[in-house]
């Protein structure tokens, strides 16, 4: 029996909750060590690099728990990069899985390659790289859907703080100016699409975790806060608003499940992410509204989830994706003809 057959994805949720709690107040590198100790950084990476070689579905409850608990670590990126590098950069992949090296991904922008003799030099301005200021390596997109792994301390790499909503895993911009990259650090065309497809499922999981936390906070507040002689949840407007949030939450959950089932493919993965953005956004905003003025305070954590959800939306380029999704759908339908109707 393989490990995947012996385990269930939900079994990792409890481990993840415990690990996330243990990470509170720690620096990024200490968090990496903690998470690695629980096997969470290499959950989908091969056993050769110290991973657990489990399907991506096993990362779903882990990512959901990490986001529900506001983990300040780029876990989604680490999990994906460790698997991506396991064949071509085995030692580095092992170091990432063990928490000795930190890696992240610049989700926005593209690097352009130029050749200088036998050297490959990368230029470009990239953004939406979570925790890049702490990372040892940054994965960037190249033209044609290829990707390159850049050492963060290489000559010509500048990592800067960026304006961004997420307080928990802050984003950075990355500028590349004639950055020399070994050919072995270039990952082939098609890499980015596969990476994005998996990332979309995990983003949906991340939003699920945050949305679940928001709904729990809103429900708790509505049940305990009294106004006009009743708990807020006495009022139908509040009850119905929370019921709609629950519908959205279960829609995200079911869409993720379907995307990982035997009928799941790239379309279902993109749909899961797009549904998560729609419902996660409204759940977090709705939770803030139900908290009233308290929801607008720094101390109530709903805004932290709202910030993360909107950041994940941008990292996955949801507005570009829904446009592509719709255009692809339209293009696959033939014009009406009676015989084919």
């Amino acid at each position, binding site marked *: 029996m393989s490990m995947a057959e012996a385990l269930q994805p939900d079994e990792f949720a409890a481990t993840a909750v415990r690990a996330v709690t243990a990470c509170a107040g720690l620096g990024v590198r200490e968090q990496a060590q903690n998470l690695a100790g629980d096997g969470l950084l290499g959950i989908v990476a091969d056993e050769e690099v110290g991973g657990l070689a489990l399907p991506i579905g096993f990362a779903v409850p882990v990512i959901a728990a990490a986001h529900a608990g506001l983990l300040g670590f780029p876990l989604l990126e680490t999990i994906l990069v460790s698997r991506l590098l396991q064949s071509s950069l085995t030692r580095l992949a092992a170091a990432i899985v063990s928490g000795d090296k930190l890696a992240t991904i610049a989700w926005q922008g593209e690097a352009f390659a130029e050749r200088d003799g036998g050297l490959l030099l990368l230029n470009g301005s990239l953004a939406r790289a979570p925790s890049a200021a702490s990372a040892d390596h940054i994965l960037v997109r190249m033209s044609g859907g290829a990707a390159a792994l850049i050492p963060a301390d290489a000559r010509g790499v500048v990592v800067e703080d960026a304006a961004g909503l997420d307080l928990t895993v802050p984003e950075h911009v990355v500028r590349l100016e004639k950055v020399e990259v070994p050919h072995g650090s270039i990952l082939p065309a098609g890499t980015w699409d596969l990476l994005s497809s998996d990332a979309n499922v995990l983003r949906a999981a991340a939003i699920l975790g945050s949305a679940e936390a928001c709904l729990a906070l809103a429900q708790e507040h509505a049940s305990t806060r009294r106004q006009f002689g009743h708990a807020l949840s006495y009022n139908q407007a509040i009850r*119905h608003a929370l019921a709609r949030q629950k*519908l959205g939450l279960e*829609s995200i959950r079911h*869409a993720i499940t379907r995307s990982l089932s035997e009928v799941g493919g790239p*379309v279902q993965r993109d749909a*899961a992410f797009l549904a998560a953005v729609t419902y996660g956004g409204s759940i977090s905003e709705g939770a803030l509204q139900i908290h009233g003025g308290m929801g607008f305070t720094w101390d109530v954590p709903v805004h932290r989830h709202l910030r993360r959800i909107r950041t994940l939306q941008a990292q996955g380029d949801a507005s570009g994706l829904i*446009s592509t999704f719709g255009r692809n*759908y*339209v293009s696959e339908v033939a014009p009406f003809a009676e015989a084919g*109707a």
Partner: protein
Amino acid sequence: MSVLEAVSTQSVAGEGLTGEAYRDAIHRWLHANLPASFRSDSAAFAPPTQQQSVAWEAAMYRAGLTGITWPQAYGGHGRSLREHLIANQEIGRLAMPESVNSIGKELAGPIILAVGTEEQKRRFLPAILEMRNIWCQGFSEPEAGSDLAGLRTRATQTGDGWRINGQKIWTSGAYRAQRCLVLARTGALEDRHRGLAMFAVPLDAKGVRVRTIKSIDGRESFCEVFFDEVEVAQQDAIGAPDEGWAAAIRVLEIERATNRMYRAWRFENELRHLISACKADPALSAMVADRHYAVRLGEVAVEIEVLKAHVETAVEALASGDKIGARGSLAKLYWSESHQRFAALAIELLSQASLPQTPAIKVARRRFEAIYLAARAETIYAGTTEIQLGIIADRILQLSRGK
């Protein structure tokens, strides 16, 4: 009837097929046998007559496409709920007419299976599947729409049966039905949901009067049904008298979670039809390629994927032995509101078609204008949106009333 003369009598149910082979057999049977005139995405479409609908659905039953999960002892095909889903996916992928006996197959039948006597199962269930008995649902009343516990229709025990007096409303298809599943009060009005009983009332009984109501789509499908001293035999009482409300709840949960399981795949058929019609029109072909409408159509496609996920999750839960309970409200709320948004988008797009209208646009407008109007009822029947939200708040979130 001529359009149905060539319908195959071959069954796909008894061939021992499973999985994709079962799906393929259903797909082939439907494509070979569904008359073009029954397809609302065809220029040849002509709404089937009552007689044609009955004949078509009887043929579907003989082919193994209805009564899929019902026990063979009562005329069913004894297959699994997952196979029921497979069949419904294939049914949904074609623009077929809705069943004229969905109340029989999806409400009365399951409730009789759950609480009926052995005699009732043998008497009623095969007749439903063979389309000899068409059923309607007598739950709502003028003073008890969403609040069924307030219903006033009264059932009084007589020496050897029951006498029913009262009035039902919004009773879809009563004018064409032979039986009505009537929920009636045996106790006091103050008892609310206690003392309710359920009856299979023959609509040709003395004292039953049916009056059709014209609906916004111009059809006269739903009805008022009046019961004036109607004598009902004891053998037509469904379940024990005090179990009426529990049985009603079970019916409604089944209705919300599993009825017309093909919806997501039918909505997909509708979306593909809409796009295909637009792509055959000079003005609309450019519009649907443009970002604005591509995004909106993409949003519909995403919602269809999510609806499929709701349905498949419910099937897996039921197939694993779970009770669906209040979770049926999630799917009902989702599909009804999603379909309304889609229908509004469809008529918005089609209203911008080139002139003169192409045959494709004429077919699509006829179909989607009907869908748009019909969809307005979808957030009302089987429990309004507000009722579903209340159920989710009460029974899933278990929100405190907090007095």
